[in-house]
């Protein structure tokens, strides 16, 4: 529990103070804070995850002046999480009480799992941010580039945050 809380705060600070200030390009706005929801243990109640995602998203909205956009995208991610996880059907011997990580479900599974969910998150978020379909392909390009960048950062962070006993 304390571990989770520390990870939550660390990820949040990293997102708000470091990654939001990177200014790579107008097309690359990476977000790593979805990892907070991605790494929750499998046995977490689905309603709990929804409330958790809502709270995290709303907190991010306060920092980014985005009025509910992060919260909407995080809820969508949290709602889709079990379906995406099931459809990927990784190894069966996963400890449901342990936090999901690169080690616990395998690198490839984790990569696909986070890529798909981050794409869903970014898709909703960036369209809400632009709030029009006028520059559809501009926005789509931004979503795709940002998704790859976010996924890369998420995987790196997930490896760094992995519990010590699992790190080889």
């Amino acid at each position, binding site marked *: 529990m304390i571990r989770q809380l520390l990870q939550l705060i660390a990820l949040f600070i990293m997102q708000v103070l470091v990654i939001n200030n990177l200014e790579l390009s107008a097309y690359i706005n990476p977000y790593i804070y979805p990892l907070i929801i991605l790494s929750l243990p499998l046995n977490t109640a689905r309603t709990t995850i929804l409330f958790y995602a809502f709270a995290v998203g709303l907190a991010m909205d306060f920092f980014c002046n985005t009025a509910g956009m992060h919260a909407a995208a995080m809820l969508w991610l949290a*709602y889709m999480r079990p379906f995406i996880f099931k459809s990927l059907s990784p190894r069966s011997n996963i400890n449901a009480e342990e936090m999901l990580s690169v080690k616990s479900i395998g690198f490839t599974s984790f990569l696909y799992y986070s890529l798909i969910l981050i794409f869903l998150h970014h898709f909703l978020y960036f369209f809400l941010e632009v709030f029009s379909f006028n520059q559809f392909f501009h926005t789509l390009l931004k979503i795709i580039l940002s998704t790859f960048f976010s996924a890369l950062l998420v995987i790196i962070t997930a490896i760094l945050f992995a519990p010590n006993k699992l790190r080889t």
Partner: protein
Amino acid sequence: MRNLFLFIERYRTFLLFLLLEGFCFFLVINFHSYQRSSFLNSANFVTGNVYKTYDNAISYLYLGRVNDSLRVENARLYSQLPNAHGRIPEPEKEICEFDPPQIYKYISAKVINNSTDKVNNYITLDIGRKDGIEKNMGVIGPKGVVGIVTNVSENFASVMSVLHKDCRISAKIKRSNYSGSVSWNAYSNRQAELIGIPNHVDIVKGDTVLSSGFSSVFPEDVPIGIVDDYSIPNGSNFYDIKINLFTEFSRLHYVYVVNYLFKSEKKKLEALND
């Protein structure tokens, strides 16, 4: 009734999702409608203090750059003082014998958070209501227009920068005095667009674009940018003008909030027309 409870029980995750998502969409749509204020903003106690603490920690890294820009700005302002110009001839002095009242007051502020690569960029300032900041005040930097205050708390203010897709700034071309409005095209933090200039106006690359002062959010003649490129779209009566902004938004550290001192009087007068 029992069936209803069973239904809720069965689909409670989905219903909860719909409920919360509905609330989020309500916030987003509310935010995008006319009044652009939201309780979700970075001018509150917690976020403001987080940004302030972070800024305190890293602002030393920029001291050299900030000093340089302040020096340049001081020199520019010194050269605008009356004693840098010739004396006003006596007869003219008699004609304008009254002292013109002060119209604008500037309040200095420090930028504690700033974004330039999003679709809607905001700046957080370290001053708020207790320093006399109000919504809709203009913000200018050492080189030109920066943005408009959108939310204020006791100690912090959040500013919609020119780099915001809904930001409109009343502007004019210095040489021809025609006015239009500056808006942002969302993909480069050095460029914006000037719209509403009729196609019969003579424009050249390098024309300076200044604030018009119509809205009294900004004083007249605050620099905004220079014309980089222009074209007339087929069948349009107006130019498409691209301008290069003077303000370097990614290097913004100190700004000034513009307080229009006749605001309440102007508001009262305009209310009479409604």
